[in-house]
């Protein structure tokens, strides 16, 4: 399982979204790594890729709104990291379409996305949670 309880930050509004994000990425990785041939995987890959892309953008947007709502001082730097990842996702997606569903491209994308996401949640997002807990605003539901 991709999600581990130790990734929980103690801020309910962020934790709920992270669990959903990990669920969508895991669904994508399971489709990517399933035992069937690449041609058989393509419809499921394309479907989960679209779902996941949409949720990555939506989650980043919601998380940035949350940061603004608690006046998180690292907002700009964090947004830059999000923007970098969104650009990477969109660029790979474009290359994937242009390559007529190249498998290596999608395997590379899956590996990087997984490692990036785990580090981002465990390291970068922990700083938001530390700030929210310190300021006593962790239950700040929108």
């Amino acid at each position, binding site marked *: 399982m991709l999600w581990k309880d130790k990734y929980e930050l103690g801020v309910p509004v962020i934790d709920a979204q992270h669990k959903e994000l990990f669920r969508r990425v895991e669904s994508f990785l399971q489709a*990517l790594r399933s035992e069937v041939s690449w041609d058989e995987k393509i419809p499921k890959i394309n479907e989960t890729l679209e779902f996941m892309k949409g949720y990555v953008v939506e989650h980043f947007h919601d998380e940035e709104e949350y940061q603004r709502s608690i006046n998180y001082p690292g907002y700009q730097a964090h947004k830059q990291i999000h923007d970098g990842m969104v650009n990477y996702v969109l660029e790979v997606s474009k290359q994937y379409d242009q390559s007529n569903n190249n498998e290596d491209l999608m395997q590379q994308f899956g*590996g990087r996305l997984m490692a990036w996401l785990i*580090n981002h949640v465990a390291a970068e997002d922990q700083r938001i949670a530390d700030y929210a807990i310190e300021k006593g605003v962790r239950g700040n539901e929108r």
Partner: protein
Amino acid sequence: MKDKLHKALIDATHNVFELMFNISEISDHPTEDFECDDEVDIAIGIVGDLEGEVIYRFPISTSLNMVKIMSGMEFEEVDAFVTSAISEIANIISGNVATALSDSDIKCDILPPMQLELNENKEYEIETSRCISTTIGDICLDVRLNKAF
């Protein structure tokens, strides 16, 4: 300089392994002890006050163990997915090293990871290698840098 770099690399590797793999016990020792038949070599270019590269040498077994812990899935060979995940880990460690060095007023940026193409003829002012041992396997770090000032 060499000591600062060495400490930054060991600390960054330790932090990333603790956060991402739940491994808190790591030790470093000379590379003479590093035994490996087959490995994934990832080079991270460094530009700024220091210029050169850090080469992360991940044995196959270490690479597969790392990806297995992250994904919860079984992997039997190094493919594009595994190489990409391992490259991102090298990228994350290097980013942490660059941040730590900036606290010592050494300003560096890192370049995207690439699978290694050795340029053995080039000479470097700073060349150091350390082997890091963890409970999921060893990693060897080769540092080859020139001062840009």
